[in-house]
């Protein structure tokens, strides 16, 4: 129960930090998933999930006006679901990797849900701001601070509520892996390594769009040289 409450609290913080504040980027998948990993006593699994989600979302910019899929909440909820499932059902090595693959896709769906909730939250903020401006126009006393803090709190509550519903759902999804035929589980397990190709493409495309093809190539060649030298 304490763990569940800690997950809700951290999800609230992630939702808040994404745009409302303090935007110290503790909401980024690399950080939030690492923290979840530590919380559940499986830091290496948290880091691995974080690295995959982070690489996927490296190019997105959390600009106020941007309508972005909520990648931070996606990573946070998927990682928490995976770790909770691992803890509750004791998934073995291949099952755990297969669950990671499932959670990567689940994360994409959570991100789309997060996008719609974010838009709704912003509409509410617009209504609150409109009310304040109307009251100021009529000369009524207003307290900007409390209205603004209500907006920040709404972000926190949104994140906690998303986690309250979507983490148990994700955990159940991971549980279903135990009922799948072994070849499929093994395939999904291997897929958790193969998807790196797709994940890396997302990061590379971002830097390529900035016209950095030569330096990317240099870095890749450096990586290949490193592998060759260390294997020799």
């Amino acid at each position: 129960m304490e763990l569940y409450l800690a997950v809700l609290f951290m999800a609230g913080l992630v939702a808040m930090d994404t745009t409302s504040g303090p935007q110290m980027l503790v909401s980024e998948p690399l950080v939030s998933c690492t923290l979840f990993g530590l919380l559940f006593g499986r830091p290496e699994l948290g880091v691995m999930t974080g690295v995959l989600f982070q690489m996927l979302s490296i190019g997105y910019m959390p600009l106020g006006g941007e309508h972005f899929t909520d990648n931070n909440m996606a990573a946070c909820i998927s990682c928490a679901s995976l770790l909770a499932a691992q803890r509750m059902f004791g998934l073995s090595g291949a099952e755990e990797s297969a669950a990671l693959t499932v959670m990567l896709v689940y994360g994409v769906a959570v991100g789309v849900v997060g996008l719609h909730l974010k838009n709704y939250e912003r509409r509410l903020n617009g209504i609150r701001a409109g009310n304040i401006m109307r009251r100021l126009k009529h000369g009524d006393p207003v307290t900007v601070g409390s209205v603004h803090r209500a907006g920040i709190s709404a972000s926190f509550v949104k994140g906690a509520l998303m986690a309250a519903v979507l983490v148990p759902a994700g955990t159940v999804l991971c549980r279903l892996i135990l009922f799948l035929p072994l070849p499929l589980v093994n395939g999904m397990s291997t897929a958790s390594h193969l998807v790196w190709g797709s994940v890396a493409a997302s990061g590379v495309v971002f830097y390529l769009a900035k016209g950095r093809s030569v330096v990317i190539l240099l870095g890749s060649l450096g990586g290949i040289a490193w592998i060759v030298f260390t294997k020799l």
Partner: protein
Amino acid sequence: MDSVHETVNKPGFGTFFRIFLRSFFLQGSWSQTHRQNLGFAYCMEPVGKILWTDPVQYARFLKRHTDYYNGNPFMSTLVLGAVVRMEETLRHGSGVTEDDIRRFKKVAGPATGSVGDGMFWSALRPFALVLGLLCAVSYGIYGAVVFLATFNIPACILRWYWLRAGYRHGHNVITELKNRRIRIGVRIMDLFGGVLIGLLAVLYLAQVENGIAAVYLWSAILFILSFTLLRRRYPLYLVFPASVGIAVVAGMVM
């Protein structure tokens, strides 16, 4: 008597520190219609309470700061500092009007948006992330620490520096946006970020336990496929699940 009056109305270190802390929550009530208007007014509140003790004047102060405002959250301290100076000048009746403040906010907000977004979201964040990811692949949880330190230390220092610079220069602070060092810094971060992402893309696979040739081959195929689709602007939420599907099938036949 006059000097006592001026001392009372001057925002001190405490006021600036409160503005600095509040600036972290500038986007707290972000809305499509008014953007960061409430956030800006929230940041300015400590100054308003010092400068405008008369309730009518204070209401006018709030009214001009709940106007539409949109800027980069990190760089907005530059605008906040300058507006504090302008409010102070307005309070002492030394040549700044309410309309001047409104106009300045309207111009300075978008200007910080374009420079600040390019600096923080497009250069510093990805650079810090790639550095953090590289560390995470090799040293686990320390990757998150490296990322947070690389991003937040310069971001916090610059927030404070810009707040003070804004206050020092008033509405002339807009020249700070043309600072050559910002452009050089962005370029360096972009270049190093590019090198590190290339390195990371290759090195991660070297970490795969029992890495076999087929893993590298299929990863390369998925890389090329995803790369091509993403370059053609297919959305990630379609490309990624599709490539996971292919990866599962490939995993089963391997």
